[in-house]
């Protein structure tokens, strides 16, 4: 799609140009975290894979909730966003399989908890979320309005954040 900027696993993207669409395609247990400053017309989208970094030198901070959230906030601030105006939308964190041992279980839920903890710490409100469950999702964020749309596998697109109506929907 023209003007679409995909965030692959462990990456984040930032858009300031009108018409740019930021996307996370095929989120399973990963979390797609959209951060928006609708006044400054800046949006960022992180494709977070895991709750916590292992410590030490991490070549890809975008993979881990504890590093990705503050790093994306800092990047948005460099692009003109104000921290107190940032709003968050979360999509993903599904559990598709019962797999893994001990802490490996339900990575999706742990990802969501870790991302929300970082947002709380930074005092960024979560305006809408479509998380949990057992289905994969894709999400798209349109710059500069900050419209956030997601879709489940084989489902129709659902608007989570509609800037024109400024209505918010909480999905299950």
């Amino acid at each position, binding site marked *: 799609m023209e003007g679409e900027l995909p965030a692959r*696993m462990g990456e984040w993207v930032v858009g300031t140009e009108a018409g740019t669409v930021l996307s996370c395609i*095929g989120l399973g247990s990963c979390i797609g975290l959209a951060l928006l400053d609708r006044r400054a017309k800046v949006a960022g989208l992180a494709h977070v894979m895991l709750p916590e970094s292992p410590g030490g030198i991490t070549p890809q901070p975008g*993979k881990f909730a504890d590093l990705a959230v503050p790093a994306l906030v800092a990047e948005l601030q460099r692009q003109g966003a104000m921290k107190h105006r940032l709003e968050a939308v979360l999509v993903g964190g599904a559990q598709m399989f019962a797999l893994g041992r001990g802490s490996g279980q339900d*990575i999706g839920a742990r990802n969501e908890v870790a991302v929300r903890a970082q947002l709380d710490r930074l005092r960024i409100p979560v305006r809408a979320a479509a998380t949990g469950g057992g289905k994969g999702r894709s999400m798209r964020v349109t710059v500069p309005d900050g419209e956030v749309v997601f879709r489940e*596998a084989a489902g129709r697109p659902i608007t989570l954040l509609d800037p024109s109506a400024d209505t918010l929907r909480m999905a299950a």
Partner: protein
Amino acid sequence: MSTYTETQLDALRELANIGSGQAAAALSTMLGHPVDISVPTAAALPLAEAVAVAGNPDEARHGILVPIVGEFEAAVVLLVPEPDAVQLCSVYNLDPSGEDGASFLGEIGNILGTSYINVLAEMSGLDMEPAPPQVVHDMLGAILASVLLASGEDTDTALLLDSALTVEGKPCSLSFLLIPVGGGVHELLGRIGVV
């Protein structure tokens, strides 16, 4: 981050070749149709690329996961596109989106996974056995990312052994992935004399 030499990847490719050959033979017996296999590929890739090589992450797939537990841990994943699943299930007059169809797809995963790892177990002397299959119908990217993240302590690199199976007479094909968990691969390679 795990890295693999060309020699190790060659050895893994050969194991995949023998394993998927056995798996194809077992599937052929179950379906009553000849089953061909492609030459397997073995690649160690960054996670994001591992998902990308499997196809467009948005595309729908029937995904069958067979966890392998024991001394060697891994995930066997079958990825079947919708039309191919319809063809496959038509052998027994089943609908892949129904309960019986899903159960049939799970059984295919079970047979393929079991025959594949039996070969690995025989050659390496490592104890391994399949856990019950789990069947989903979802986005390719979501299926693979979930398996890769839940199964590996190594979150940098995914080792994928990929063979395509083609069922004759029922024009359909599916991809067959063996995704080893963590350090087990080096133990496996050591047992067959490739260090």
